[in-house]
């Protein structure tokens, strides 16, 4: 399988995107942000079009293109908007679009966790600090913003560096990703997890009236539920096991994303959860220690802040 996209085309489109980002970055005087956004958007559109053409056998997935365009467009706005509060709000939009992409990928739990943790908690902390640490503008004009927000540092060099990396990365992946073996069709390794969830199967069967109110899933001689996942059947019977029969498992009874993720976390990565907890605890302690520290203004800053007499009263 050859490259998924002609590398030279990809590099050219990366250069177009880089030119757009370089134009859109805030700078002194007139900054052509709209033009830059347009050029960058044209580059992104080119990449999508080239990828869509190379993949014409499949139906285009509009949700993917929509969410990724929103995500990348608002990411561009995060790094170009001169007002920090708006940059943070555009980052929330990036998060929401990423959540959409996660849901398209079937990772519902991570998508919603992203909204709750990122958009709900982390970004609110950012907004608090931005509001604490930014002087309120006197008039609703860009001129009222601090100089360091209005003028970016080395926009051209940074864009070239960044997009050289993106070009190298995507060009390399275009050659490599096509050769990663996909799992065999129909062999979903997660299907076996249904064996661990007899209660869920029992509840689903009872709701569909496929088994009686008092029937339960029987236990096989090896102690596991008597399920045949290859044939998708299950042995059910009365609690004592007096009368037994085989019931089919409907095709749409399967392990959900949350259940699969829970098994992966608890069964395969139990130590990692502990480590995450320790990291969070240490971060909390560190933040408390840092925030309690009393800091005086620099010697050089004092005259500026308190007038020529200087110093605290």
């Amino acid at each position, binding site marked *: 399988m050859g490259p*998924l996209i002609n590398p030279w085309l990809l590099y050219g489109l990366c250069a177009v995107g880089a030119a757009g980002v370089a134009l859109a970055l805030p700078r002194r005087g007139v900054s052509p942000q709209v033009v830059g956004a347009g050029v960058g958007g044209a580059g992104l559109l080119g990449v999508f079009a080239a990828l869509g053409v190379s993949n014409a056998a499949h139906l285009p997935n509009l949700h993917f293109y929509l969410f990724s365009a929103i995500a990348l467009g608002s990411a561009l706005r995060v790094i170009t908007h001169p007002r920090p509060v708006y940059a943070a709000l555009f980052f929330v939009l990036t998060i929401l679009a990423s959540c959409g992409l996660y849901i398209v990928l079937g990772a519902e739990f991570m998508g919603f966790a992203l909204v709750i943790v990122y958009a709900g908690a982390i970004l609110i902390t950012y907004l608090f600090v931005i509001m604490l640490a930014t002087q309120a503008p006197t008039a609703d004009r860009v001129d009222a913003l601090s100089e360091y927000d209005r003028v970016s540092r080395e926009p051209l060099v940074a864009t070239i560096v960044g997009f050289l990396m993106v070009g190298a990365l995507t060009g390399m*992946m275009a050659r490599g990703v096509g050769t990663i073996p996909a799992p065999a069709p129909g062999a979903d390794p997660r299907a076996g997890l249904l064996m661990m969830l007899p209660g869920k199967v029992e509840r689903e069967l009872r709701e569909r009236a496929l088994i009686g109110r008092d029937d339960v899933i029987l236990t096989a001689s090896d102690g596991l539920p008597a399920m045949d996942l290859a044939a998708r059947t299950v042995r059910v019977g009365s609690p004592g096991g007096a009368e037994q029969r085989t019931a089919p498992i409907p095709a749409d009874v399967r392990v959900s994303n949350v259940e699969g993720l829970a098994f992966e976390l608890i069964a395969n990565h139990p130590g990692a959860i502990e480590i995450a907890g320790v990291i969070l605890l240490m971060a909390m302690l560190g933040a408390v220690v*840092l925030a309690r520290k009393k800091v005086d203004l620099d010697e050089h800053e004092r005259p500026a802040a308190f007038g020529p007499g200087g110093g605290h009263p």
Partner: protein
Amino acid sequence: MSAILAQADYPALMSAPTLFHYLVVSAFMFGLGLVGFLTRRNLIIMFLCTELMFQAAGLALVAFSRFHLNHTGETFVIFVLTVAAAEAAMALALVVLLFRRKETLDAERWEEMRG
């Protein structure tokens, strides 16, 4: 809604967009975060740009997780979230300290800290 969730049915291969589509979006998002980190001079926006790079990494992880039909990539995203939360707490505490010291968020005012 059903159109979106229909793709959660785990067909054998990723439906319309391939793994590469997601990796391209992830790479571009990472590049934008990198450019923002290098160009912006506001300390808070610089940290926001690192969050953008975290996002890009998370998207690539979830796409790989979906491609290989297992949940390992998604568990890694939980740790990306953890590290991002820890980083936000520490970095913002530091930013508040630095702001109290100089009354500005300009990263270039801390030039004397260069190693």
